[in-house]
């Protein structure tokens, strides 16, 4: 029976040791996991709604996302190991129980390390995303500031020219093309046909369910606002990660306290079983002197 217990404990320890080695193997892969999104012109031109989807999709394809998924899977397995160990402790006693408690503490430590690694990967994701969004916003703002005073003046002149033109189209037609002998030009005919087609298409586009404008909390937003909202969300993610780091710190402290308690308990038991005689005072030695 005692031999069986020792065998079980050894097998368990070997399994756990294998698990630990697997963790250290993935650590190197974690270091190399990166995500490098590029603020390309295409991305700048994409509607705000698609920008987010495109960014998420790009991340999902990256090595960093794969590393986070792997860490998640490892955490799931580690959690299962912790559950198994806890159940085994409940059903065991004596040396085996102490051994299993020791293994539980080791596994808890590794669980925390894994959580830390995942947290680090998520932080890397958030920081990269934040940096990317900053770059994208700068790029969009640069495009907006290309409007120099002279160019703005030109655009205003062109807008007022178009307005004036719209007001005089009928008059010009009447003045130049009113004579019955003058046929409508090929351009004017074709333009009218095409304009009807364009208007038809525009109406269809406006009614299209996918042609919804980007909104922030049900309020229509421009691209800059949308990106700033994404930045705020990323910042919130980083703040949550900071909070999670303190949770991990508390978990680690609890594991350390448990380890101290276990160590003290084992030492007390060792002392109780010890063959060394207890040191005694002179009063205990009286029996040697009194006849």
């Amino acid at each position: 029976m005692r031999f069986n217990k020792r065998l079980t404990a050894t097998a368990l320890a070997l399994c756990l040791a294998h698990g630990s080695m697997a963790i250290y193997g993935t650590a190197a892969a974690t270091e190399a996991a990166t995500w490098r999104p590029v603020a390309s012109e295409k991305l700048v031109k994409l509607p705000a709604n698609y920008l987010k989807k495109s960014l998420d999709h790009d991340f999902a394809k990256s090595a960093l996302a794969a590393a986070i998924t792997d860490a998640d899977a490892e955490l799931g397995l580690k959690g299962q190991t912790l559950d198994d160990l806890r159940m085994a402790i409940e059903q065991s006693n004596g040396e085996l129980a102490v051994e299993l408690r020791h293994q539980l503490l080791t596994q808890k430590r590794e669980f925390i390390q894994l959580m830390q690694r995942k947290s680090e990967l998520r932080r890397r994701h958030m920081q990269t995303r934040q940096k990317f969004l900053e770059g994208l916003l700068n790029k969009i703002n640069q495009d907006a500031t290309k409007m120099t005073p002279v160019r703005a003046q030109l655009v205003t002149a062109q807008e007022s020219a178009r307005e004036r033109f719209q007001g005089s189209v009928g008059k010009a037609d009447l003045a130049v093309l009113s004579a019955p002998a003058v046929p409508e030009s090929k351009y004017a005919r074709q333009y009218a046909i095409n304009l009807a087609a364009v208007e038809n298409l525009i109406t269809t586009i406006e009614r299209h369910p996918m042609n919804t404008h980007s909104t922030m909390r049900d309020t229509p937003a421009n691209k800059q606002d949308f990106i700033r909202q994404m930045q705020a969300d990323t910042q919130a993610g980083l703040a949550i990660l900071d909070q999670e780091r303190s949770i991990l710190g508390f978990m680690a402290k609890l594991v350390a306290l448990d380890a101290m308690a276990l160590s003290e308990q084992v030492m007390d038991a060792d002392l109780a079983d010890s063959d060394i005689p207890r040191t005694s005072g002179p009063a205990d030695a009286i029996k040697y002197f009194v006849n």
Partner: protein
Amino acid sequence: MRTSLRLILPIGAMIVSTMIAAATPVHAGTLANMERERAHLIDAILDAEITPADRQARVETAQRRLIDLERMVLRDDGLVGRNTPHVRRAFANYDLTFLVHASAEKNLAVADAWLEQLGISTQSLLAAKVGRH
């Protein structure tokens, strides 16, 4: 795979539509063509070698062509914000550039509208004195 297709297809379509919009040729020539035709019109107005009937016929023909060319320029999105001296100058004076529409707006003959822009009116011509250099 299906998820990625679901995402790639709309994004791809969106990019293609953006690229099509960006790749639409900018007709820089609309302005040049219009100005060429306007020069013909002004040439017909100023030509002292032709009879009034010929002038009238030439002006009317040029005017019919110019009305379309002016509309092409005013509808040309490629010219919006194109900050070149040529485009800036064209839009700086609507009455001179879009001669046919401006004259129709003011109920004037094209020749009168053009001369008015140059500061020459019937009154100023009648009031002028023949002098020597």
